[in-house]
């Protein structure tokens, strides 16, 4: 996948292709960052900081500055990334996000992974709203070979969550993954519904660990900040799965999300197949961010 294929990096060319640090370098760097969806605000912040460091430390060599820049990015992305599955009691993973970002697919992928790690997995069809959503999750359940708890289309999703948590406890499962309907973060009533589902899970979970995974689509631009902000406010997001990185979108917006909200990226989606899930690796991501 393209995450690995970044020998000719735009940024590398930028820093090695000149003998001195000039204003043009900073401007070109800004262009590259903005074109990777890093966003105006974060881009300006990063470049201003770089300028200050260069001046204060008297850095004259562009390649030295390149290293400083890499460290800046790694600093943002590195903090606090623990694995979602690494645990021994029941973990309940609630998967949330706006419409069409890849929640249900990511759940299928997570289920396979957990199963391969010898975990006993249960899925909950908490999206009772979208046409065909239950059948979609059922298809993943069948493909991966894990059980699924579902109610009828149109049923209360909090009731599905309630039943699923009871079932997970009764059947001594290691991991319960709860799908939820896609919803725009601006829809107050739907965000209230999500909070209710979260409350029920929390309440019924007892000593199980509850995690909220926000799915963001790498194709998304600046709106991802607003999404992360509002979902975090509603249900306290623990980590992000960044999907669709197999396309040409760079997903630079997660730099802004991490910097402003401190939510770490845990997983990346790199395709539609069940194996197309990887751990997030900051180095590889940064390389890919600047690949031609």
């Amino acid at each position, binding site marked *: 996948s393209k995450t690995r294929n970044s020998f000719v990096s735009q940024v590398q060319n930028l820093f090695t292709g000149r003998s001195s640090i000039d204003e043009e370098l900073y401007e070109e760097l800004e*262009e590259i960052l*903005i*074109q*990777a*969806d890093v*966003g*105006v*605000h974060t881009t300006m912040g990063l470049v201003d900081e770089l300028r200050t460091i260069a001046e204060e430390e008297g850095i004259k060599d562009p390649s030295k500055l390149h290293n400083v820049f890499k460290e800046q990015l790694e600093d943002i992305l590195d903090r606090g990334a623990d694995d979602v599955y690494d645990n021994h009691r029941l973990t309940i993973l609630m998967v949330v996000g*706006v*419409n*069409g*970002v*890849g929640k249900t697919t990511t759940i*299928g992928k997570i289920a396979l992974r957990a199963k391969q790690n010898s975990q006993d997995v249960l899925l909950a069809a908490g999206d009772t*709203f*979208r*046409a*065909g*959503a239950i*059948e*979609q999750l*059922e*298809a*993943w359940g069948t*493909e991966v070979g894990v059980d699924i708890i579902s109610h009828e*289309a149109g049923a209360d999703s909090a009731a599905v969550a309630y039943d699923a948590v009871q079932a997970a406890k009764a059947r001594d499962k290691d991991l319960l993954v709860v799908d939820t309907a896609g919803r*725009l*973060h*601006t*829809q107050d009533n739907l965000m209230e519904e999500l909070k209710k589902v979260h409350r029920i899970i929390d309440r019924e979970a007892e000593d199980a660990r509850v995690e909220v995974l926000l799915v963001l*689509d790498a*194709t*998304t*631009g*600046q*709106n*991802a*900040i*607003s999404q992360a902000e509002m979902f975090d406010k509603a249900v306290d997001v623990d980590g992000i799965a960044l999907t*669709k990185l*197999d*396309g*040409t*979108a*760079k997903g630079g*917006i997660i730099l802004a999300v991490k910097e402003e909200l401190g939510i770490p990226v845990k997983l990346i989606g790199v395709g*539609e197949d069940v194996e197309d899930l990887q751990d997030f690796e900051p180095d590889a991501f940064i390389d890919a961010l600047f690949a031609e």
Partner: protein
Amino acid sequence: MIFEGLADKLQDTFDKLRGKGKLSEKDVKSALREVKLALLEADVNFKVVKNFISDIEERAVGKEVMDSLTPAQQVIKIVNEELTDLMGGTQSKLSIASDPPTVIMLVGLQGAGKTTTVGKLAKHLHKNGRRPLLVAGDVYRPAAIKQLQVLGERLDQPVFSMGDKQDPVDIAKAGVSHAESNGRDVVIIDTAGRLHIDEELMGELKDIKAAVNPQEILLVVDAMTGQDAVNVAESFDDALGVDGITLTKLDGDARGGAALSIRKVTGRPIKFVGTGEKLDDLEPFHPDRMASRILGMGDMLSLIEKA
């Protein structure tokens, strides 16, 4: 939010300059810098922004602006006019074949909203006296066919499917013949989401096009799309010759700068916008509203009126 309204920022910039009497070219340029940042914050493509700004610079540094008592409003007005202009007129019309059935095909990235839009278009067309047939051409995504069937049931309109084991090209062809023999006058083909760089799947779309010769190929684009929108739109347009765009998920708080980028790189009209998950949530595209939205200025029109 990080983003303050552009109107406020411009007003600030000009307020500071007001004491100086007349504005200089430099003053206007610095105001246009705010416009540039606003467009970038709205996800308008970087290169598109660059060209756009240099185009309007010529107009904005003209005498009418600099001598005006309300330069902020004048600049906004020019930017808004140019943006609206660039986004084209209102064209929510679909071309209808003189010899039915009319074939409409929806294409786009994964999760953009194609299947939902098939349902919305069927409803829209049915209301206008047409007899649509929905064709389930996505054989890859789990339960994609089921999703379309549920929408068909809700609308009480027929869905043509051959399951998920047949070639989408054959399904499309059979769907059109089915429409012909059953008196359906519009065929709306749902296709699987795909990446614009996936040559094999892009080839499949070309084959469908060649097989059924659609009147309308609509590219469905998520309004939240960032800088990549231009690559996507260009690739689909190069491969297929897109007839129009539908911009979905405009019911959120995305500024929707992708609309501008796509319009600029392809020149294709934006025909519809999706404003919700329900099948009624389809509206004609309004260039002027989109311009205000991209600039982040709900109150812009009233500002302009004061100018």
